[in-house]
């Protein structure tokens, strides 16, 4: 194979420079700074700091609250990812079959995509409001007195519903384009072989959608971990209290609300490690089972 060579050996590095600079300034440098300050306890105004070794990490990991927040994050991530992928897939498969009024149906489903997370949170807060929320009134008819902000379970429920609702359109768009990318001839061949639509879906369509699905899985886990910040922030109304929060929101609470820079740096280092491990697992274990055509 013939190799393409640059005339000057420096040129490729020069062309890479803007990208490398962005990665260094906006990712590597802050990450290094977070690792450094995770070993210190620092006065917020920057007058003094004390080296405390791994105290910030042990304090974080031994606090009862951190375990609770981590457990909630895991449950929250699971439900948000599973439900938003599942519901979006169902809607996409159904939308793919619609012939009359297809585009308006699809547009309506994609609409929510344009809503920013804090706005979605605000809509959630209004719908689930203790005093005037219509969803609360609806469940009250079945004898479920929802108390968002008081009851841990109810608040988690509202957060998950709002986050899922916000994420479905993105997944819908990708699944729909994935479905439309499956060639008609394969589908026709399958329908000659098998009458059951259900079975055709699981044996033919679903495996062919796997690359899209895998991509969305990563996007959705990242979404549940990080991008739901705005929704949670609006839902807890600035006072976490006994409400469920995610790990990322706790980093913000301790660092920006409480000005505990060392403790919150330690938490973000833990989070960095967690995401790193998660990414390895995803690519090592799951991607092997995905076939790209």
């Amino acid at each position, binding site marked *: 194979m013939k190799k393409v060579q640059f005339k000057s050996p420096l040129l490729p590095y020069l062309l890479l420079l803007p990208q490398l600079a962005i990665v260094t300034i906006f990712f590597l440098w802050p990450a290094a700074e977070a690792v450094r300050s995770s070993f210190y*306890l*620092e*006065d*917020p*105004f*920057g*007058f*003094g*700091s*004390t080296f*405390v070794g791994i105290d910030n990490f042990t*304090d974080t990991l031994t*606090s*009862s*609250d951190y375990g609770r927040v981590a457990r909630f994050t895991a449950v929250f991530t699971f439900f948000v990812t599973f439900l938003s992928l599942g519901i979006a897939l169902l809607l996409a498969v159904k939308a793919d079959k619609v012939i009359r009024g297809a585009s308006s149906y699809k547009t309506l489903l994609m609409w929510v995509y344009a809503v920013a997370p804090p706005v979605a949170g605000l809509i959630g807060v209004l719908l689930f409001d*203790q*005093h005037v929320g219509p969803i609360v009134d609806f469940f009250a008819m079945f004898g479920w007195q929802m*108390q*968002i*902000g*008081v*009851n*841990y379970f109810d608040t988690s429920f509202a957060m998950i519903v709002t986050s899922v609702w916000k994420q479905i359109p993105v997944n819908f768009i990708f699944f729909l384009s994935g479905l439309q990318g499956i060639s008609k001839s394969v589908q026709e061949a399958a329908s000659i072989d098998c009458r059951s639509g259900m079975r055709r879906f699981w044996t033919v369509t679903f495996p062919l959608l796997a690359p899209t699905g895998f991509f969305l899985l990563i996007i959705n886990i990242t979404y549940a971990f990080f991008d739901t910040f705005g929704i949670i922030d609006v839902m*807890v*109304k*600035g*006072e*976490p*209290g*006994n*409400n469920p929060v995610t790990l990322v929101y706790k980093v913000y*609470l*301790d660092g*920006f*609300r*409480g*000005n*505990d820079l*060392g*403790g919150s740096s330690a938490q973000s280092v833990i989070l960095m490690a967690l995401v790193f491990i998660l990414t390895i697992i995803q690519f090592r274990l799951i991607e092997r089972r995905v076939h790209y055509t």
Partner: protein
Amino acid sequence: MAYRKTVASFVAAAALLGTSSASYAATDIAWWHAMGGRLGEVVVDIANGFNADQSACKITPVYKGTYEETLTSGIAAFRAGEQPNILQVFDAGAATIIGAKGAVIPAQDILENAGVGFDIEDYIEGVRNFYADSDGKMIGMPFNSSTPILYYNEDALKKAGVEAPKTWEEFQEIAPKLKEAGYVPLAQSHLPWIFTENFKSRHNLQFATNNNGYDGSKDTKLVFGEPIKNHFTAVKGWLDDGMFGYYGTGWGDNQTPFNEGKVAMWLGSSGSFGGIQKTVEFPFSATYLPYWDAVDGAGTGTFIGGAALFSMAGKPDEENKCVASFFEYLTSPEVQYMWHKETGYVPITTAAYDLAKKDGYYESTPAAEIGIKQLTLPGGDWTKGYRMGFYVQIRDVMNREYGKILSGETSVEDAFATIEEEGNKLLERFSKTTGN
């Protein structure tokens, strides 16, 4: 005010004459605050009033979001060398900014350096010490000062045939009648502030070692005795018996049912007065924060909540002089009286309080005087306030554990054990940040 205006314009004129070529420009100072909505409008009015009153200085107020956001922006700006001249910092953040030696110039110093007289005795009792250091030197200039009081729906009380309670024992007697009349008898809007910090003050109980934390952050520990635990046991009982409503940590979520006439009595801030007056359709009044008669020495005054204005360090002398003249303007009886009337926050000087009395304000609206009267109730050893670092997180721990008590997830004993353990750990961590 008129004399100062004359002097200022005279000085300005002299400056103009003296520098025939260079044009005279006012010194600009910036004021970062956390007052949104109606309060923000009044802040702008105060700034405009100051700018119109003299011409040597021009103050620009900038709204920075919530209290926490304002403090965080102020800290970030300070580290970048871009700090405003005046930063509004709330009660729970006081230890952070006062603990950072060199971040602020004490209000007392800035006034004295500018040749403006300062006498701590001019300020009312409950205001003097909250933002002062352990020697009693005033560091922050108290600005929006409020204290928790009990608001009540007069119609509801009349319907139940009861009087507003002075003590919690009285409350327990009248609450069933209010419940019978179809009301939730009581709600409150801030468990750490009303049922913890001011509970301690109202009963003259120690809140933390090291003189409630004023004597330094090293080895400061929270102190929780039987009275506060008994109080929370009682509150949980009230909740279970339908005599108390808890709607979460959101301030407004707890105030709304009172405004709507569902809750008969609500514990909120004296600064809520203006808002309630505009919203509710029923006659309402206010009284002191109740206390437990059974606790020895109870019935002492409360201390202020709200926020203070801090003069940030690292600014040129002429700007500091402007800060001093702004503080002087702000504490003048007329401005304080206007602020008090517009917002419900208490006037911070005796002179302003006297002016409000002389003007007959409290004859027409007696409820507006409750906050300041409660602040001037006789004090004790533990009524001047508290000074604890990482206090925002300590409050978060309290809110979390109180939430668990009320939802039945934990017992009062266990909740306070957790608050003590995690709170003390935070205090220990804070003392390390300042290098002590």
